[in-house]
Each structure stands twice: as C-alpha cells, then as structure tokens.
C-alpha cells in the first residue's frame, strides 16, 4: 500500500490495466483461425424453450423430445419418413392375427450409456411405466408387457388393438427405453427419472439450467441397419459430430441474430416475420416442419358450449382462411385442412367433413344460434399471449363471432396461467391451442374424454375403441371417416382451424440433416 502511494507506480498500474483491457478487447474481436473444409467439433442448436423435464416418458413438452429422442433415447420401434413402422431397439416384432398379442425380439448387445446391456427387464419396466402413467392405458386397459426371455418381451391385450406400434412411434409422452434401475430410482416427489441414460448415439454430458444441454458422442453405440441409410427416426445413426449443444435462447430476435452471425448453426422456431431474411439466401437452409393444428376447442363439460347447436353455430361462423392468415402471416407456413389427421400420407387422412370446415356462413350461424336458444351470454375464449399465433387467431375469432351476435370475450393469460385455467371448466367456454401431429385417430387430443375440453360423447368413445380394435384396415378407415363426419356435422368437439408449420433454419454449412418432426443430430456435420 505504501508503494502504491508513489505517483509513477499509480500511473504504471493504470497503464497496465488499460492495456490489458485493450488487449482483451482486441482478442475479443477476433476468434481462432479456421481452415475451410474442416468439420466443427461441436454444433450449436438454438432452442426456443427450455423443457421443465427431460423424462420423455412423463413430459409432453415437444422441445424435450427435440433434444432427447433419437439422440439420447430410443424406442422399440420408430417411424421412417413415410410413417412406416420400423424396428429400432427391437430387431423384429410379431403381431398375432387378431392383434391381441405383440411380441418384440430385442437387439442383442445394445448398451445403455452406463455400460449395462439392454435386456428384457429394462424394456418391461420402461414400457409398463409408460402404460401406467400416460393416456396409453386408456387404450391398453390392464394389459402390460411381460418378459419371455432376456431378449424377448410381449404384451397380451384383452381387446384387439391395431395401433400399438403407431402409438409407440408417435405418442407423447414417448415410451423410451431406460435401465430398470433408473426407473426404480425415480424421484418420489416428481415421479421423474433422475438420470438420463439411454441407448442413443449421443449421451448427456451436462445440463446447465437456463443455459444449455450438452450431448457427447456415445462411443459404444453401434448403428443399426444399412450403412448410410437412415429415414425419419430410423436407420443408420452415426454421431459424426462429437459434441452437440442445445442452447436455450428464448428471445426469438436473439435466435435470429444468432443464426445470422454464426453463433448458432441451427435455430429452431424462428418468428415467421424473419422468413424473408432467410428465404432464397444461399447462406441458409430452411427446415420447414409440420407443427400440428391450431384449434378452437370447446368446453363440453360446463357452460354454454355444452350445447352442440351452439358449437355448430360458432363453427359455421368461422372463416379459417382469415384466421390462419392472421395467425401465421406467411402463406407457406399454414394450410387449410379439414382432416383431423394432418398427415396426408397416413391412411387415416380424409377430407370427409370439409363441408363443415371454413364455412364463414353468417346466415347459417345465426339460424343455429336461434336453435341453440342463445340469449347473449358471454362466450369466453381462453388464449395465451405466450404464443403469438394463437393470440392473433383469437383476435379474429372474437371479431367474427361478434359479427353474428355472439358475445365473445377473450381471456388472455400467460402460459402457466393458461395451463391451470384450462383445467377449470368454470372459467371458459372455449380455448385456442395447437395440437401435435397425431399418427392415429385415438391420439387426437380433442377427442379424448380426459383432456381439457372433455369429449365424453359415448358415440365418439365407442367408435374410437372400435376403430382401434378393427383388424381389417379398410373397415377401420371407413369407420374413422364416418366418425370424422359425425364430429364435423353434429358433435363438433373442436373447430380445427388449419395446419401450421414451423420455421427452423440452419446455416448452409450444416450437412446431413434429415429433419423429420424435429432436428436429428445423428449423421450431421457442420463445416468450418
């Protein structure tokens, strides 16, 4: 301290400090020199939201699936790009003629990330956890998986079910396969697994809350199938890039600037008003992804929406073209679609019922209102401001309903409040949300008796069970078509407004990306 009193020492000290900062600044402005043609050792993916849990068997958060499914966790079977069921952790599977018994023959020598070999006990524990704790049990009833031997499991059903494999491939929560010991050690409070140990080509290195998830190459992974051939979730999966970072970047403008400045190699769910900044630009690749349907789901448990005539009236008034344009803005990112099943490749896809879609018929709507005995009661529409597209749709719907004499009122809340309020049937008459792409009709949320909206119609439930149990495909499809018609014409559990797509962007240096219902990081490289 004595020495510091000398003026020349003080000046020298300040000089050193300032020089250091200048040096840091100049160092900061640059970066390590790169050679063209080199492949990056790490990929940075900017993710729009942080999932609250990565236990895919319990959470329905799509972003958790984007990060973990296929990269870290795998399933018995999975979809290829044509939505055909392909073996994954099961080397092959057999189904008996009346679809009451499914047998899965497991691949031998598949190692979990902790070095333990995957065997039947792990699969039985994982699959039964999925059956016990998710909506799958509504279809499967009491049936549970059992071990036949160390590499064979089966499930015997009391009633025929033609769609079990479809459900395994597409249902959220997903039936991931984890070690039995991990399931035995679930947190008793949250009932979630505490370790993320899967079989995938990547394993979890670290999760830094509010920052990133870091995946690293699983050196023990042996790809399945033919070298270089992968399709959808399935096929030859190689961890060509050793490290993957999923960075949580909630602010959409930060993701946009991040992908443009090269901070991120891939950015998920960019705002659609940034589309023109990437469209047609050689430096970027656009990955357009089917998001699902935007729907106006009615409260069929309590209130004025329990009246089917009122629901038909509201449905008749809606101009889906206007609503979807307001919601999504960019025409390339939405599609008017009357089919409850979005996927045109699916056998379940049908436009039966299109007469009752996008009617925007004010005369018909008013006549139905009279039949419903509507007396001007408030029609409360619950919507969240956390998703701009839903909010935009709600503004237009409110106006369209007011024009035909419905006292429409919006209740706009944040996401957390939206999830809570939706469970309280006394708080709203309809809500707006998006649903994911279903693979089979009984996955359609607004046909579920236990999902918010409460579609408890006996005809719907009976028919859905019947469709699932119908062995003949053509007959099952015909039944589904009739059910869809019934829903559009009479029951109206919800008004699907249209399909929406998500804007995801990668730099042009990203190679090998096969985007299918999410970013698949296997086989992907990014050049320097």
């Amino acid at each position: 301290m004595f020495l510091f009193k000398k003026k020349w020492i003080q000046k020298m000290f300040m000089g050193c400090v300032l020089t250091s900062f200048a040096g840091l600044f100049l160092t900061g402005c640059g970066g390590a020199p790169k050679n063209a043609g080199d492949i990056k050792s790490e990929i940075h993916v900017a993710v729009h939201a942080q999932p609250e849990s990565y236990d895919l068997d319990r959470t329905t958060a799509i972003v958790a699936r984007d990060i973990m499914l296929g990269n870290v966790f795998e399933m018995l079977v999975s979809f290829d790009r044509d939505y055909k069921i392909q073996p994954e952790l099961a080397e092959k599977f057999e189904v008996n003629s009346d679809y009451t018994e499914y047998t899965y023959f497991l691949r031998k020598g598949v190692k979990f990330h902790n070095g333990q070999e995957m065997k039947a006990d792990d699969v039985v524990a994982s699959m039964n956890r999925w059956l016990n704790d998710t909506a799958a049990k509504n279809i499967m009833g009491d049936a549970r998986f059992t071990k036949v031997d160390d590499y064979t499991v089966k499930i015997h059903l009391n009633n025929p079910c033609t769609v079990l494999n479809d459900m395994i491939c597409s249902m959220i929560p997903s039936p991931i396969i984890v070690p039995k010991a991990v399931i035995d050690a679930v947190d008793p409070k949250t009932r979630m697994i505490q370790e993320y140990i899967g079989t995938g080509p990547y394993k979890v290195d670290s999760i830094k809350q509010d920052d990133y998830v870091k995946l690293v190459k699983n050196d023990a992974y042996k790809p399945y199938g033919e070298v270089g051939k992968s399709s959808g979730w399935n096929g030859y999966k190689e961890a060509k890039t050793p490290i993957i970072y999923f960075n949580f970047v909630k602010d959409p403008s930060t993701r946009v600037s991040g992908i443009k400045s090269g901070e991120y190699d891939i950015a998920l769910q960019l705002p659609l008003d940034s589309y023109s900044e990437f469209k047609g630009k050689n430096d970027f690749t656009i990955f357009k992804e089917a998001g699902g349907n935007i729907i106006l789901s009615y409260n069929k448990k309590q209130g004025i929406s329990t009246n089917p005539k009122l629901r038909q009236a509201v449905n008749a008034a809606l101009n889906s073209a206007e609503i979807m344009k307001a919601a999504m803005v960019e025409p390339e990112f939405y599609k008017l679609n009357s089919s409850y099943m979005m996927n045109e490749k699916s056998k379940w896809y049908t436009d039966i019922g299109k007469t009752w879609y996008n009617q925007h018929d004010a005369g018909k709507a008013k006549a139905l209102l009279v039949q419903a005995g509507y007396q001007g009661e408030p029609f409360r529409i619950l919507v969240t401001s956390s998703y701009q597209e839903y909010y935009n749709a709600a503004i237009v719907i409110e106006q369209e309903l007011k024009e035909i004499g419905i006292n429409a009122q919006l209740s706009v809340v944040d996401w957390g409040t939206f999830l809570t309020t939706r469970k309280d049937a006394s708080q709203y008459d309809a809500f707006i949300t998006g649903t994911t792409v279903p693979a089979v009709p009984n996955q359609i949320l607004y046909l579920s008796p236990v999902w918010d909206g409460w579609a408890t119609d006996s005809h719907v439930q009976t028919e859905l069970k019947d469709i699932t149990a119908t062995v003949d495909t053509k007959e099952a499809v015909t039944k589904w078509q009739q059910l869809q018609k019934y829903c559009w014409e009479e029951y109206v559990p919800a008004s699907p407004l249209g399909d929406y797509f998500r804007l995801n962007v990668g730099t042009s240096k990203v190679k090998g990306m096969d985007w299918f219902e999410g970013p698949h990081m296997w086989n992907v490289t990014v050049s320097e």
Partner: protein
Amino acid sequence: MGIYILKRILSMIPVLFIMSVIVFLLIHIIPGDPAKVMLGDQATIVEVEALHQSMGLDDPLPVQYLHWITNVCSGQLGHSLFINESMGHILISHFFPTLQLTLYSLFFAVLLAIPLGLLAANKKGSLIDEGISSFAMLGISVPSFLLGLLLVLALSVKLSLLPSGGYKSIASGGLAANFRYMLLPALTMGLVELGLLVRMTRSSVLDILSQDFIRMLHAKGVKGHVILVKHALKNASLPILTCVGQSFIGLLSNAAIAETIFNIPGLGQLIINSVTRRDYEVIQAVILFVAIANIIVYLCIDIFYMKIDPRVKLR
C-alpha cells in the same frame, strides 16, 4: 463503526421478513401450477393431480410458508422444483454472470463518465459541453433493449466483430472468451448508466468549481487540470459515489433485459424462468438474495463515505 454495521444488519431482518411474506403471497395468488408446467400441455388432469400431490403442493399456504421460512432460518433456502441442484448453487451459479455483467457495465460507464463529466464541467457552455450533454441524454433516453438489438445488428450480424449472444464463464473459456461474450451486453447496459453518471459528475463538479477555494487555487497559479482532478473531482466524489452505488444496484436488478437479449444465464433469466414455470422457492430465494445484496451495497457505500470524507460519522 462496528456498532453501526451491526445495527444495519439487525434492521434488515424485519424488512426481509415482511418482504418474504408479500412475495410468497403474490406468487401463490397468481394462477399457475408447477405440476402442470412440468408435465406440459397435453397432460391429463389425472396425471397433474398425481404429481401435484407427490410434490406437496396440496398443503395449505400457511403450512407451505412455515415450512419454507423454517428452512431459511436454519440456513436452507428451499429447493427448486425444476433444477436438481442445491439452492445455494443455483443462486451462486446464476449470480456470477450477472455480477460480471454488472461490473463490466459499471467499469465502462465509470471509465467514460468521469472524464466526460469533467470535460463537460470544465468547458461549460461550449459546444463540447453541449455535445457531451446530448450524448448523455441519448444514453438515458434510448431503451436498453433497443440499444442492445442495434448493437447486435451492427457489431455481430453486419460486421461479425462480436458474438451476438451467449455466455462463457472464465473457468470454461478463459478471461478473453468471457470478456468477448460480455462486451456487447456490457456496452448495452453501460451506455445507459453512462448518461446518468456523466450528468451527475458534471453537475457535482460544477457545484465545486463555483466555490471560493477553487478561485483561490486559480489565484495561487495551480494548473487547471490539477484543480479539476485533484481538488474538484475529489470534493465532488460523494454524490458521484452515491450515483455509482445506485447504478450498481440498478444494473444488478435490471440485468434481466440484457440477459434476455444476449442469452446470459444470470439472475434475471433465472427469475423470469422461475416465474414462468412457477418455481416458487427459487423466486423467493432470488428476491431475498437481491434484497440482501442491495442492503450490503448501500452499507458499503456508507462505509466508503466515511473513508472519503472524515467529516462523515456513522452512528
């Protein structure tokens, strides 16, 4: 001074207690349920209720508060429903980026504000003074989020000079990488504080320059820059110091904006995320933490006062 410090610490306790009750009530009154957030949009009511029960969210509010305050008094700040780490680790790991951002911002602000303020005071009424005052006004007027986005557009996207966002700790990336990632956010926040500090420095120095002893120093032939720095600035330092302290608190509390734009995993992001997912105990812990930090900073300022100006006595 020791008695003064002890008195200040003891006076914190009722303040913190009242604040904890208010915050607890507020966050529990707003709708929302962490169980529903955890399970996601497509969870059924049966699944949610099961998780609700197992997480203990069914207990009456007074019981939940009592449970939490008892833990706090025994040194445990609670636990997060979503982050599988101790609360202490959560707070510290998120505090460091915010602290770094605050210190870098303050450093830039002070480094530029003091000389600019002195220059403006010295050249009062001139074009230089007007220019500096206008620049200061601009810094105060422009919203920080707009400034941040403009800086990102210019320096990251267009010129590729700096990263557009993210954070690298000193431990993982080294000091150079840490500084590189913090530079833009620090400039964003620092430029706003710069405006305030320039104005405060200018007006405080002008007050001193108008006093008799300064005239005497001129008469004695003391050089202008010596009068300005050694005498005027030193005597004007008390209000400037207060402003610096308040800037520190302001930067610490308002870091959420910069942390959101630049994606820095600091306290601001933590509290926003915790409110979104209704992570009750984290919200309470962060607010308590920031309140204690505020009180400590003001206490330090008071002690500094005493060191700088011997006339100040702490009682």
